[in-house]
């Protein structure tokens, strides 16, 4: 990777990062999520219990469109099977999948037809698994309620439930005392993103039992219950199950559950020097290593801050227009970088059909509170037009706008430089003390970019509210969100949503 943190992979991923999917115009189905997990396990193979389309169309990977799922065998259900059932096909299909691919795990993924006709997938799987030389697990999407992404959560839950902690002794292996598992969403380079965390934990005398997903194999999964703690990005149903059955605790880096109780916005900001210190200390407390941790965190922090003070030298006085929300570059990181957030832009349009007004207000307030805690006093803009934004940006003499490449050209043509948060969030934002230093380098790089006054993208019309979308895609987005939510009135408030995530399966 180059000094500025770029590599071909980051550029390649970015090419597809502009697709407005994931809740904007579409939601990937459960098969895609289950395939993503299966694909992340090197010696696992999926078996889709359904017709050809469920196997062919799902080759397009909505989580990584640049990387299709190459192996997607299916049981090829047809109309006769829909009438008479597909259990025999499934039985034979599992045997053939084993004979053909020789995997260590077959993940049976059910589909709409097999779900609706009532095939007893559990019984078939149980029966055949003793005949093949590998584990066989099935995922229906029904194990985890509304925990998102459903397919991914469900498949991981299925592995834990049916394989790792299934009550046959697997879930009670010899413990790797004093160790943790670090398990991240298997999208881009888990190994790289958790390396520093593993190193800091090592200094605290906390061992890392397993990092997932980083060339993970089935034998690695079997090792998961040996650890004392699972560290995950978000609430994970499988981790709660492993806690229940095998006494492996779980720690979520993004403290959604605790936020709903304490209303402390810093709980949703685990990055930067202070956020990372808090996370490391909380992990250490759970592992009974708080004594060791204090010294390690202090030392690591001091070392990072020394380098950070040099890295942020040229950023003093630089004004940033940041984007609020639940995702994106954490405001803590801007504080560490020594820049001033002069404008805070909150966009709520996508959320409006799914969240109540109170919930949206809470998200906006949470961002403003966090800005205040970080010592910023920005001009807050809620759902501004681009003209309003540009005015505020110019009025405040803002130097840099945090804008994804979908809308960067709108600022650039006005002579305002931009910084792409998407690549940073995907490839760099993580718990650790090095991340703010990387951010400083990248911000400085962005400030050095030439003025781009005539981008071709400016020739296009854009939606007045959703700047990153053309008017046509904005219509698709509005139609999608309206049709998905409004007709059944399933708006939620933030607390209820968080509660549900915490509570787990909505059986």
């Amino acid at each position, binding site marked *: 990777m180059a000094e500025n943190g770029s590599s071909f992979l980051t550029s390649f991923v970015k090419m597809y990062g502009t697709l407005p999917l994931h809740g904007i115009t579409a939601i990937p189905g459960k098969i895609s999520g289950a395939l993503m997990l299966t694909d992340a396990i090197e010696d696992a193979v999926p078996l889709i219990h359904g017709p050809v389309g469920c196997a062919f169309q799902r080759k397009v990977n909505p989580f990584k469109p640049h990387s299709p799922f*190459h192996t997607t065998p299916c049981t*090829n259900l047809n109309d006769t099977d829909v009438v008479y059932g597909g259990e025999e096909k499934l039985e034979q299909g599992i045997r053939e999948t084993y004979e053909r691919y020789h995997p260590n795990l077959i993940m049976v993924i059910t589909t709409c037809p097999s779900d609706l006709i009532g095939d007893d997938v559990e019984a078939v799987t149980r029966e055949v698994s003793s005949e093949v030389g590998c584990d066989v697990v099935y995922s229906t999407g029904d194990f985890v309620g509304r925990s998102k992404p459903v397919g991914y959560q469900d498949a991981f839950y299925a592995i834990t439930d049916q394989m790792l902690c299934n009550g046959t002794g697997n879930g009670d292996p010899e413990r790797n005392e004093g160790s943790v598992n670090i398990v991240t969403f298997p999208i881009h380079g888990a190994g790289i993103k958790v390396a520093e965390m593993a190193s800091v934990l090592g200094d605290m005398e906390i061992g890392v039992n397993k990092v997932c997903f980083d060339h993970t194999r089935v034998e690695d999964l079997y090792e998961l219950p040996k650890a004392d703690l699972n560290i995950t990005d978000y609430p994970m149903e499988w981790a709660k199950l492993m806690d229940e059955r095998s006494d492996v605790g779980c720690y979520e880096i993004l403290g959604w559950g605790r936020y709903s109780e304490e209303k402390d916005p810093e709980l949703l900001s685990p990055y930067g020097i202070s956020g990372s210190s808090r996370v490391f200390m909380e992990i250490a407390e759970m592992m009974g290593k708080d004594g060791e941790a204090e010294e390690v965190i202090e030392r690591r922090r001091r070392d990072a801050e020394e380098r950070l003070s040099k890295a942020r030298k040229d950023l003093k006085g630089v004004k940033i227009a940041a984007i609020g929300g639940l995702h994106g570059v954490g405001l803590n990181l801007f504080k560490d970088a020594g820049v001033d957030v002069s404008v805070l832009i909150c966009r709520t349009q996508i959320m409006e059909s799914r969240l109540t007004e109170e919930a949206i207000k809470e998200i906006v307030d949470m961002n403003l509170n966090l800005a205040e805690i970080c010592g910023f006093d920005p001009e807050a803009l809620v759902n501004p037009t681009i003209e309003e934004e540009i005015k505020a940006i110019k009025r405040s003499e803002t130097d840099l706008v945090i804008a994804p490449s979908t809308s960067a050209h709108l600022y650039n043509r006005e002579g305002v430089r931009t910084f792409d948060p998407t690549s940073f969030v995907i490839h760099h934002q993580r718990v650790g003390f090095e991340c703010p230093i990387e951010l400083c380098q990248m911000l400085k790089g962005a400030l050095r970019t030439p003025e781009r006054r005539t981008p071709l993208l400016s020739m296009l019309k854009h939606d007045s509210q959703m700047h990153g979308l053309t008017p046509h895609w904005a219509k698709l987005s509005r139609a999608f969100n309206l049709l998905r939510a409004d007709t059944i009135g399933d708006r939620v408030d933030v607390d209820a949503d968080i509660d549900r995530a915490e509570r787990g399966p909505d059986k």
Partner: protein
Amino acid sequence: MSLIYDPPQDCKLVGAVRAIHGVSDSITIIHARPGCHCGMLLLKALGSNQNDVRVISSGFRAQDTVYGAEGRLSAAIQHSQEYFEPGLIAALNCSAPVIMGDDIDGVASVMEEGIPAALMTLATGGYEGPAWVGYEEALVKFTDYMIPVERPSANKVNLIGIKTDDVNAAGDLTEIRRILKDHGIEINTVLADASFDEIKSAPDASLNVVLGGDGLECAKVMRERFGIPYITTPYPFGVKKTTEFIEKVTNGLGREIEIELIDREVELVREGVERVCMFLQGLYDMPVAVIGESGRAFDLAEFLSDELGLNVKVLAISGKNYLTPDRLEDGNGHFGNVLIEPDRFEMNDLIKRAGVSAIFGSTFEKHLSSELKAPLIRVSYPVIDEVRITDSPYAGFRGTLHLCETIINAVITQNIEEIEE
């Protein structure tokens, strides 16, 4: 033969969407769980018409499997009308609502009075058939909206079998139009690359030209309903097939082919061939595999073998059409081992054993091509990792040179690590 099937083809839904999306003022409602909608949207958005994706979801959710989702579908129809003001709204009933028994025809019938757009419905349960059947059925459905003409225009033809999301479809169509225009023949309606009004006026033509066999059923129905005769032609890849295409169309209209025009075109091809003759000599006898749909792959394979001199070791037909059995008969040895809708695992195995140096296929052959360190020339659906925004065709006389250019470049631009022994 294995029961498990890693398919090279999609389900009925995708075939139907490919036909309907060719109607430029249509909206397709995917009445299904979110995965089908997301998959369709991705296939469209990753192509070369990113600002012309007209596929929406009915918002079907898990809880609807208990009480039905007809209400959602009617809301989707209503909103499609309000947001997009289309000429045609097509509601496609996918696996879950088909099994549940959602009455989408009933919904359409109740709503049609209040909706200015035409409402079309189609059962597209994933288990009901492959993509090509969905394509055929959707084209046949279009005939319901066509307006009979007493005296159809002479020298006007309809082209049937175009899929706008095929590689270079726009360029191919431009080239075909040009060639026909040079012969004084006008294209009336392209099925399906037309506005809904143009679809309606399809009967104002003297001949239906079925390209590569795709849409044959529609041509038969149009003959029955509107008395329009049809011919089947090859997909015009290469000089030979293009000439055959023009011959068949002109003869179908009761006219003669204009030899001088053809000679002029062939001369231009010759000049192009001359410019890269040494590389073309180098390509001669290169072992290759071709994977693609019946409507194009047979003709492409024949062009590669007969005109470029490549050695087609494997021809895998990823999706059939009604002419596939006939095409198998007339290969004259140009097709090598032919597989029809094979299992991908078995197909890959055969291609690996065949020792090919290049693969003509879709994005889904990328992994295989990497394994074999053989260049992948993207000629078949779906291509979601290459875009085309210029009108360079693969079809016709001009397309012949473009194909030559693409193939030569694919071979000689391979990265060093891909050619290391």
